[in-house]
């Protein structure tokens, strides 16, 4: 096991009853104290992966250890370290917020601690709702309660499965603030998402999963560099014989078939070079009648990654 890794996944596969293979030989190390984003389209196997680590789904093959303990042989040790906020929002309609959060703490083997429950509820702006029944809460509030449940037993690892799906901006911001605070206190956080922006905002490292295979794991900076490319397409009046000398500093390509000049740049940079390019084009006397920009869609990025991997 890697010295700093807190979760170690080796050769993990899952075939559901009925024969569908949701995970294919996944290897992954999660580092202690990091925020890790598992990025992938719907049906990629993100929830399956999380559910296996948490003990909700049985693995078909492979081994998972959490802080050196096997998730099956030493399930008590591993599960008491983990808090899970599930993707779906199942709740006990008739229970009060306070009871349902306290219940979770007990379930995870911790003695009652009203002070801790109180601070968790307050940090999630749930304190004034503590005596409300679950069924009276809005979707966003329910999500907050599920987070409170996951935090009730002071986990050292927190899984957030699609935490911002269908969540309003306010909760999203509160949630990120909370997540950063937890990370600062040493909690390891693994979140899944199918939004690149979300992975980008939050995570330190990103794993990309598609059709059950982990395609790559990279530091966010590197990945964003790779994924953040954008193209500016200029539809020229006249074909070019070559790229003029004063434009040689730009990442340019001429496509004769469509008479397009394509400029590839990084949209996240402070200076994208677009202004400079347009000025230089004017100087070189190159004219165009239309322009459009194009950013790779997530689908395309996945396709690119898959082909790149081969």
């Amino acid at each position, binding site marked *: 096991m890697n010295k700093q890794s807190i979760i170690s996944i080796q050769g993990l596969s899952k075939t*559901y*009853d009925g024969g569908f293979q949701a995970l294919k030989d996944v290897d992954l190390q999660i580092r202690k104290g990091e925020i890790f984003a598992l990025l992938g389209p719907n049906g990629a196997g993100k929830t399956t992966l999380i*559910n296996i680590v*948490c*003990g*909700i*789904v*049985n693995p078909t093959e492979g081994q998972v250890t959490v802080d050196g303990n096997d998730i099956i042989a030493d*399930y*008590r*040790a*591993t*599960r*008491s370290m*983990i808090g*899970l906020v*599930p993707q*779906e929002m*199942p*709740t*006990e*309609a*008739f*229970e009060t917020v306070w*009871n349902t959060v306290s*219940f*979770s*703490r*007990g*379930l*995870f*083997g*911790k*003695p009652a601690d009203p002070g801790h429950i109180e601070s968790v509820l307050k940090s999630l702006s749930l304190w004034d709702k503590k005596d409300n029944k679950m069924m009276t809460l809005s979707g966003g509030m329910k999500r907050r309660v599920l987070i409170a*449940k996951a935090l009730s037993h002071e986990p050292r690892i927190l899984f957030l499965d699609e935490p911002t799906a269908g969540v309003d901006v306010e909760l999203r911001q509160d949630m990120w603030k909370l997540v950063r605070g937890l990370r600062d206190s040493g909690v390891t956080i693994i979140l899944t998402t199918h939004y690149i922006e979300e992975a980008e905002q939050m995570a330190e490292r990103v794993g990309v999963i598609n059709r059950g295979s982990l395609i790559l794991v990279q530091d966010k900076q590197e990945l964003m560099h790779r994924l953040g490319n954008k193209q500016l397409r200029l539809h020229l009046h006249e074909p070019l014989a070559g790229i003029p000398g004063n434009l040689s500093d730009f990442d340019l390509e001429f496509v004769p078939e469509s008479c397009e000049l394509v400029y590839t740049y990084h949209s996240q940079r402070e200076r994208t070079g677009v202004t400079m390019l347009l000025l230089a084009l004017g100087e070189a006397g190159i004219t165009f009648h239309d322009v459009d920009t194009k950013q790779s869609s997530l689908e395309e990025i996945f396709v690119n990654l898959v082909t790149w991997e081969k």
Partner: protein
Amino acid sequence: MNLHAVKAIYMFEMARTFRTLYQSILAPVISTSLYFVVFGAAIGSRITAVEGVSYGAFIVPGLVMLSLLTQSISNASFGIYFPKFTGTIYEILSAPISYVEILLGYVGAAATKSIILGVIILATATLFVPLEVAHPLIMITFLVLTSVTFSLFGFIIGIWADGFEKLQIIPLLVVMPLTFLGGSFYSVNMLPPFWQTVTLFNPVVYLVSGFRWSFYELADVSLWVSFGMTSVFLAGCLVTVWWIFRTGYQLKA
């Protein structure tokens, strides 16, 4: 042992009972009272005493068993089926809790409710008939044994069920008939010889017989056979539950 978890589940389930007090306690008490009125008072007044015990008093143990069985099954099956249905089971499955602890929580709570209910029904019965219990310890043993066994059986049904119909079907199609034909309202000796033999395949007969013996020292089969058969059923349920947990049947994908 994760006692905090056992307590959490147990208290949660008990709280559910108190929230649905009418359904859990009041309804069985009312239906039992109706049985007394109909069978004990109206019909019973025309039936001679059974082996020296008035008919009204004779049916008390059977009525208690009837409620114990149906309520144990319905409480325990609902208790575990509901989290499966709503999805909150994810939390139980991801908690650092062993199967034994899950059982202690759910089955313990269901059995506790049944025992409370049994006592309430006995108390209700004293309003209608004079009651005496010859062997209180044995009576309590049967009360507890039956509650635990059938709560366990209900737990199995709750796990097996993947819809509300399945949840109802076994109690309705199997347990009710077996209970009615299990000597709750008559002594097996009153049946023709052929049916006496058939009846012996009905496990409820042993429960009712043993339980009734603790009241009036009247039994269709010997006390030890009653204990033995009940224990065999308990063991069968335990083995099934062990298998369910070992394979994750209907709980884990």
